[in-house]
């Protein structure tokens, strides 16, 4: 969970990019790293623990500092999980302490079973960590919209955004940086909104 450090005046927030293998999670982080406009020193290195064939083995990690609010620095730590089914234990480790999730789905028709399976896997992993998706801000990004075999957005909404509460969703072409900042800014807004609500005065 987010760390509020009154002594160092910092709010630290963890956002995890989740989704099926080869869906574009790492590409999202690479694009944020390459294109984000920050003051000098506010963007950390992008660290990738990957296999020799550039598949994520453990996680990718990108720390970025956003705005300062009333003297508090807000630091965002962006993680990806490995999408391949066999790395489920690793996904559970990365999810520990998560504050917000960007679910990156692959828009290709033949990837729909993997999208649904990955979303189901997210729910199960959160349950194993005694967390509940209903209480965690998340957004959906339907990536690879540029491919000819991309399913309609409405179909993806029906498959993945059909829970009690619908969440914000974005079409994306991550390798062209389309949808990347839209998703990141939305999850950031949702997280800050959550903290504002939590920090509102409680009256007995």
């Amino acid at each position, binding site marked *: 969970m987010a760390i509020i450090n009154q002594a160092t005046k910092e709010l630290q927030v963890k956002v995890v990019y989740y989704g099926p293998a080869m869906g574009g999670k790492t590409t999202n982080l690479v694009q944020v790293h390459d294109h984000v406009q920050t003051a000098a020193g506010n963007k950390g290195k992008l660290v990738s623990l990957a296999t020799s064939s550039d598949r994520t083995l453990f996680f990718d990690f990108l720390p970025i500092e956003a705005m300062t609010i009333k003297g508090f620095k807000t630091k965002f730590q962006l993680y990806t999980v490995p999408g391949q089914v066999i790395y489920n234990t690793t996904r559970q480790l990365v999810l520990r*302490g998560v504050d917000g999730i960007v679910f990156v789905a692959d828009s290709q028709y033949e990837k729909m079973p993997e999208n649904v399976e990955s979303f189901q896997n997210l729910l199960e992993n959160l349950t194993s960590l005694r967390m509940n998706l209903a209480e965690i801000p998340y957004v959906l990004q339907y990536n690879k919209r540029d491919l000819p075999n991309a399913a309609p957005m409405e179909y993806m909404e029906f498959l993945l955004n059909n829970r009690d509460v619908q969440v914000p969703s974005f079409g994306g072409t991550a390798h062209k940086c389309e949808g990347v900042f839209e998703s990141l800014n939305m999850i950031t807004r949702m997280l800050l909104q959550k903290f504002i609500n939590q920090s509102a005065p409680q009256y007995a």
Partner: protein
Amino acid sequence: MATLPQLIEEDIQRIDASLNDFNAQADATVALVIDKGGFLITHAGQAGELDLTTIAALASGAFLANQTIAGLVNEENFNCTYQQGERTGLFIVNIDEHCLLVVIFKAVTGVGVVKYYASAAVQKIARQLAVAQAREPGKGFDLSELNVADPQNLFRRK
């Protein structure tokens, strides 16, 4: 899921004091208190050019990976991990449910002395975290100034 308590200045000062004592006793280069989610909470020592944010994220991942291996080999707990290098050593030890102590030290120091003094430091830090947990921090985190509907305040693309 239980969370780390809000830490006030007094907490951090006391934890820093414990880390400074530990560094002096164990001749450690730098000692970090991190959250198991990968956040750096505080540190003491000569960090120099070290990227402590990334070290915290990787150290928590490495420690938790070892915890998972412990489960797979039916060991109840591996409560510390140690990496021996030619010039530098890395020691990670569990503090409590939420936090870890990460120590970077010169290889000539030897892990024995680090481990010995770390156990006392861990107890002091755990006590302070328990105090923070028991406290009801009256002051909330006031974000009311931020207009979250305004995307200009958030991340911008070059």
